[in-house]
């Protein structure tokens, strides 16, 4: 009980001391808060992004077959479907009609896709899917930049530069915006007309298999039987994706590291810079009967209050920055994506591990570097410390 009272009094004194040196401490809190905000933004962003990517890939087809002509992706004849359907282990073969559409007015790229049974994972929809010619459904990003809503009309230019219009019947509010943000969904007939796809041709073919383990075998067989095709397995998409993501997270990592360097410099400065006034105070406290451990406790509380305040505010700012504001400060790194995703909203996934990591990066080193010089002063004879 006596010990509790003793600790609480030292804590009281620590808080009083923090306010006493409010200018210095406020500047430290501001710097550390900013640092935590940057670090937490990067951590939140990377994690959330990864989670969405995982969700996206879970919905991706196991095997897609494209035709390659002169090294370029070309339309594939629907006749190929019959050949593939004959292979053992293939359960379904579905043609897909899609393409990228560049919208000059909004300076953005959209993915236009024909609706069919291969379009899966688009469950969450406001309104409904297009069911007849002249109807469309939009990703929320498209709806946002073109100021469209259910009941309004979307105008697109076809390959002969004629204006076509579609009535908006549904909007994807899918949580995973990475998947649907830039999407325009039309009926199959409409998309064939828009992109001028000749009948009997498709953009690519989705192959469903009975047993996932057989995918590489079936892919190999397609490749040998139909030499001008390129089968793409989900695992390959994953690799491409990871390369792309790896590059981006590399950028992030370098930002992360430079923040860390800044942090260390500041920490070092703090470690070596116990002001004459602070030293004298330690000497006074010792002279009036404070033990070394009391002084260390005082400095511990001071460090804890300051770094915890910075850590909590910084983490909250990072959270708001990434999940409410769309990470504008990370946009130099995200430029590639922001064309694709006019408005970049990530779903808040919080990883407790990251919070703990952040805690160890911010709070522990700060307390350590503030305690060490105080400890050096506190173990000296008071006479020596006071005289400096």
């Amino acid at each position, binding site marked *: *009980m*006596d*010990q509790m*009272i*003793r600790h*609480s*009094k*030292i804590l*009281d*004194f620590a808080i*009083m001391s923090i306010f*006493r040196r409010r200018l210095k401490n406020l500047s430290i809190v501001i710097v550390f808060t900013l640092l935590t905000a940057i670090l937490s933004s990067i951590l939140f962003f990377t994690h959330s992004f990864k989670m969405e990517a995982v969700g996206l890939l879970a919905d991706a087809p196991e095997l897609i077959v494209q035709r390659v002509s002169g090294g370029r992706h070309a339309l594939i004849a629907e006749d190929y479907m019959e050949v593939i359907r004959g292979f053992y282990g293939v359960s379904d073969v579905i043609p897909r009609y899609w393409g990228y559409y560049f919208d000059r007015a909004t300076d953005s790229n959209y993915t236009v896709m024909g609706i069919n049974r291969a379009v899966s994972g688009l469950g969450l929809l406001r309104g409904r899917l297009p069911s007849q010619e002249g109807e469309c459904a939009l990703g929320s990003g498209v709806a946002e930049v073109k100021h469209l809503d259910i009941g309004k009309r979307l105008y697109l230019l076809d390959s002969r530069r004629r204006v076509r219009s579609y009535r908006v019947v549904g909007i994807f509010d899918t949580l995973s915006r990475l998947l649907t943000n830039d999407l325009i969904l039309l009926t199959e007939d409409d998309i064939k007309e828009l992109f001028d796809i000749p009948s009997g041709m498709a953009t690519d073919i989705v192959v469903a298999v009975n047993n996932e383990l057989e995918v590489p075998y079936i892919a190999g067989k397609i490749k040998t039987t139909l030499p001008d095709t390129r089968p793409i397995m989900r695992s390959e998409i994953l690799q491409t994706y990871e390369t792309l993501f790896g590059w981006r997270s590399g950028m992030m990592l370098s930002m992360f590291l430079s923040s860390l360097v800044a942090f260390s410099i500041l920490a070092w400065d703090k470690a070596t810079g116990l002001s004459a006034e602070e030293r*004298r*105070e330690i*000497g*006074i*406290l*010792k*002279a*009036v*009967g*404070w*033990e*070394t*451990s*009391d002084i260390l406790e005082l400095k511990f509380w001071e460090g804890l209050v300051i770094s915890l305040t910075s850590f909590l505010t910084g983490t909250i700012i990072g959270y708001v920055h990434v999940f409410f504001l769309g990470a504008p400060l990370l946009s130099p790194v995200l430029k590639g994506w922001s064309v694709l995703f006019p408005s970049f909203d990530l779903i808040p996934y919080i990883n407790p591990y990251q919070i703990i990591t952040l805690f160890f990066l911010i709070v522990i080193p700060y307390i350590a570097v503030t305690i060490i010089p105080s400890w050096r002063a506190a*173990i000296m*004879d*008071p*006479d*020596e410390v*006071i005289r400096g």
Partner: protein
Amino acid sequence: MKGVLIEIEGVSKLYNQGMPDEVRALTGITMQIMKGEVVILKGPSGSGKTTLLSLIGCMARPTEGRIVVKGRAVSRLPERFLTDIRRKTFGFVFQEFNLIMDITLIENVMLPLYPTGMRYSEIRLRASSMLDRFGLSEKADHLARSLSGGQKQRLAIARAMVNDPEILLLDEPTAHLDAGCSEELLNMLSSLRDDGRTIIIATHDPLVYERGFADRIFEMRDGMIRGVSGR
């Protein structure tokens, strides 16, 4: 007098030992201080008074020799035991006061009581009665920096007294005071002495050592004791 309270045997103190700027501040000091005695260390500036006072008050350690306080050889004790002795036995009034200027008077007086098991309300009460005793209660919630020299001196004494120490050590207590204030301070010290407290004063102010309230006066010069006068 009821026996020896402090024994000092062959104590020397070197500053910056082994360095080019080595200073010999004290040489072969031997003396005894009795319980309830008032002792003055008198001597010109640089004669080693402050150094001797800090050794007695366990603020520093002798280079050679032995200091025994209440039967314990403090010169050899590890730092944490010294802290304990500092808190329980000594009240130290520094020449430069060593107050924390940007906290209030009452907080300054409370400082020695923080690392104890006493409740916050209790230490505040004790500190405030101490301020009362030294005529500072009206300014209890002012910052220490707002005080005059005489008030700072009284505050420093109040802080030294809040633990009710057996031994009060004062270093040049009149250095920052005018004649009137010095008079007032000496009256105050007389009343503390009447409580039976042991008081050791380092001074080169004739006003203090000619007043005749000390039991013994040690004359210091060049880090040595050159003479003792007393009753």
